[in-house]
């Protein structure tokens, strides 16, 4: 194109300053957060499977609650964590909270959960109904070590109380003593639990997964290696819905729908522009 030649609308669209698109996205996402649209949410099969797995646990069962995400992941999976913990407590299932993620953030995520939903531990006693072991570094090595011996890997809870002085830990020594594993992850955690817990002790494992890992996790779920899956923020919203306590994740769903709709529109326009420019100009 020569200098001074008038650009077509499609050419201008292709060369638009990315910052304009970013501003537009930010403003667009704010709208449904300020004025909720109430777009209905359908509960998917993997989320329902998580719910049913928890419902099938007898009272007094022990759940392993692995917050394998970092603090940055709370917007996506904080809702899943809160809804799951509330469900466990409501069904009188005891929970051992731990974090085998790459970053030692699980206690911070736990703090966020309590700040957002203080009711999740209402009428529950620390040490009897739940305990916070805190971050355990080592990733797959620590998951394997915990499977072989929890008390050999972690000496005390997050606050320094020796495990043998904590009532909930009485009689719990390794993965075989855990009935249910819930793991929030942004990567490979679920595979580690399948390899070192599920395959060895037959624990019921469910996963809360960030968006990019959902494809892999769905394949693992379809293969029957995990009992259920909370897929990204949508899975979190579905779980809030199915457990009857709408929370933070549902607030984000209208935003997700609006944003995804915008991306879809931009992709269609971009491709349409490409086709029109290519074939409209006789270019082959």
């Amino acid at each position, binding site marked *: 194109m020569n200098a001074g030649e008038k650009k077509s609308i499609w050419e201008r669209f292709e060369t638009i300053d990315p910052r304009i698109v970013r501003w537009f996205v*930010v403003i667009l*996402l704010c709208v449904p957060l300020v004025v909720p649209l109430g777009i209905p949410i359908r509960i998917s099969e993997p989320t329902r499977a998580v719910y049913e797995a928890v419902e099938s646990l007898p009272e007094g069962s022990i759940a392993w609650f692995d917050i394998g995400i970092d603090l940055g992941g709370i917007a*996506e999976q904080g809702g899943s964590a809160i809804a799951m913990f509330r469900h466990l407590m409501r069904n009188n299932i005891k929970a051992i909270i731990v974090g085998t993620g790459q970053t*030692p953030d699980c206690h911070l995520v736990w703090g966020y959960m309590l700040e957002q939903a203080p009711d999740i531990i209402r009428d529950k006693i620390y040490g009897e109904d739940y305990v916070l072991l805190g971050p355990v570094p080592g990733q797959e090595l620590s998951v394997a070590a915990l499977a072989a011996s929890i008390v050999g890997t972690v000496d005390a809870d997050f606050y320094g109380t020796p495990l043998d002085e904590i009532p909930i830990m009485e009689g719990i020594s390794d993965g075989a003593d855990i009935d249910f594993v819930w793991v929030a992850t942004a990567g490979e955690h679920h595979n580690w639990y399948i390899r070192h817990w599920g395959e060895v002790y037959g624990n019921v494992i469910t996963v809360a997964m*960030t968006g990019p890992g959902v494809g892999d996790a769905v394949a693992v779920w379809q293969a029957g290696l995990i009992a259920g899956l909370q897929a990204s923020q949508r899975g979190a919203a579905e779980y809030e819905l199915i457990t009857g306590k709408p929370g933070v994740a549902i607030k984000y769903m209208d935003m997700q729908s609006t944003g995804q709709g915008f991306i879809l529109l931009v992709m269609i326009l971009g491709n349409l522009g490409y086709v029109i420019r290519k074939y409209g100009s006789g270019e082959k």
Partner: protein
Amino acid sequence: MAFQIADAIMIVTVCGIFSLPLYKENPYYRFAEHVFLASMLGNYFVGAYKYLMTNVANPLMRGEIAYLIPLILGPLLYASISKKYSWISRISFSLIVGLATGLSIRGGATVNIIANVRSTFLALFVAGDLLTSLNNIIVVVGVVTGVAYFFMTFKQEGITGIGSKIGRYMIMLALGALFGNTIMTRFAYLGGRLLPILQAIGLAK
């Protein structure tokens, strides 16, 4: 909810980080970035220190001297920053790599291969359930043609060429789904910062 100092700090730092993609590189962004990095490193340090004190120092105090081994092997990793003594760090690294490899092999075939292959052995026609039948057909065709795409032993033409082409489209579909999920995560991160700001200034509940 009353506007608190914590809200002000959050808004200032989040806007600082947002100033890069929404405007351009600037000192305000640098400030927010450094605050983020410093607080993250501080958290890492405190986390590591606390873990060491609780789970290594305490057992050592009780006389469990086996805990001396990781206490020695851990600092050896830092020898890698010295040209002269970097070889020492290989002792710890080799142990980590060896352990991680051994552990990932354990059950690896079952989890990553056998179970996934088994899950694709589906009935192509389920009586009275058209959607499941269609879904199963898509899964089986997708797996077979997707694998065919990577079959490079001989030239892909004729029936294998068609299979390979379908496989390519199947892979593109899968990548499209991956892209959609990734967008969902990015929006979740963005929304996770926008909502608290809107709540702090009273625009959202």
